[in-house]
């Protein structure tokens, strides 16, 4: 029998490289770990359970259910545990008395605020029974917010319903003043905010203008 075709030799050609590879892998692990380990710790690399979705150039950390940055569905708004994607449209926000009628998006990041008013992602959603914190730019969507008065109504229309709130007061506070809003409230309420800037001023200010509104009623649009 030809030595070349000897089954024992053929097995050796398969087994030995596998054995060498396994042993080398073990040695490499033992030898390289102490060198690479500290760098890996410094970099603190983390891996996600799925490929990330980027909205407006930033990773969306709230990757649940809806994976497109379209409009939030009524089923998503009904589910108190579900969170929309950043930049996703939640509905429309209007204050008829001061002619504010703007798209309402999820997230008050810089990009979302160029498209409309944005719900701070750490706050609640309409109908969720929590504080809803909504930001908007003074030069665009909330240009007339300062004209809104106590008693005026704020309406949020979403796919799941129409939510009415009534303005109870306003306040000027520093941008870093966290006492200006209570995100842990057990009752649904709406807080709108924008930059506090006069017409003679140009540039960024450190003051914010807050409008507080209490929940009045809601109408479901679901059949």
């Amino acid at each position: 029998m030809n030595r070349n075709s000897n089954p024992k030799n053929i097995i050796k050609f398969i087994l030995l490289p596998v054995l060498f590879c396994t042993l080398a892998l073990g040695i490499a692990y033992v030898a390289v770990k102490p060198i690479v380990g500290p760098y890996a710790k410094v970099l603190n690399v983390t891996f996600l359970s799925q490929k990330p979705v980027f909205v407006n150039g930033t990773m969306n950390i709230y990757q649940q259910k809806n994976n497109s940055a379209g409009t939030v569905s009524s089923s998503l708004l009904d589910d108190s545990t579900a969170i929309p994607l950043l930049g996703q449209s939640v509905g429309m926000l209007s204050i008829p008395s001061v002619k504010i009628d703007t798209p309402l998006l999820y997230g008050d990041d810089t990009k979302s605020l160029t498209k409309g008013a944005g719900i701070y992602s750490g706050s609640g959603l309409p109908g969720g029974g929590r504080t809803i914190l909504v930001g908007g730019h003074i030069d665009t969507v909330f240009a007339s917010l300062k004209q809104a008065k106590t008693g005026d109504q704020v309406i949020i229309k979403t796919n799941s319903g129409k939510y009415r709130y009534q303005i109870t007061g306003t306040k000027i506070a520093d941008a870093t003043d966290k006492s200006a809003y209570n995100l842990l409230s057990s009752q649904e309420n709406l807080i709108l905010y924008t930059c506090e800037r006069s017409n003679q001023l140009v540039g960024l200010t450190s003051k914010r203008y807050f409008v507080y509104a209490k929940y009045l009623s809601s109408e479901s649009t679901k059949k």
Partner: protein
Amino acid sequence: MSVTSKRSSQVISYLLSFILCLLLIVGSLCAILQATVLNENFFKQQMRRSNYSTLVTSLVQDRFVSYGMAAGFDQETCKSLLTKEQVEADAQKIVQFIYESGKGPDYDAFQKSIMQKLTENAKSRGFQMTAENTKAIQRMAETCRISYQQIVALPAPFVSALRSLVPKAKRVLLLGGFGALVMIAVAVFLLKRLHHMRSFYRFCIYAVSGALLLLAGGSGGILLSGKIERIGIVLQPQYKLTVIYLHQMIFYAFIMAAVLAAVTVVLAVLYVHRCKQHTSSADPQHAKGVYAGKLLK
């Protein structure tokens, strides 16, 4: 040669073959790292491939436009505060900062230029440069600078790790690669001395295919696991750069595996050729029960 000495020669050959396999792996890894992580041009190439500057420019300009909506500046003015050319130049400086210990981007100069542009714009629109306005524009310029710095710069721990690793690794890998080459030559020489050509090829095939298996299997495993795409990086420019950078490293590992595969094929062809020669010839040197021309007892 006695059976005992033949056995010990076989054991030594297997050991030498394994050492050769290890050396080939070390040599290949040294070559891959020299061509990728330690190569400044490789980094710059991946920045171009990932459209790093375009993504950064778009992301930063969007933020500037948003700040402008809160500060009383129009979209065009805000977009003109940053150009793609500036981002490209700064990205190059960041890479040079890692590899050549050069200076990083001058963010103070960037803030000053924004301050100047915004002040000119405000003046042209009839705003008085009161202390309050100057402060508000200063705040806008500072916010723009922070935003730009956060987005264009690579993560500080990454830059710091690379800056400390690159000079050391350059020396170690150069020596390691050279050392591996010398030792590969020694191992091959010893294997050649221990055996006739047929067995020599056989042991070389074990070594080269073992190294090939590790490189191809390891790279393929990382690629198929999809871990690279699931890396947790928040900003899109950095995420794309990292994913393309790591994919390119895997590609280099596959090129190295292809070289080893080619060597394995050549060795296999030579081995088969020798075997055929051996069976067709009635060479008493290689007759059954004969080793190195001596009858085995």
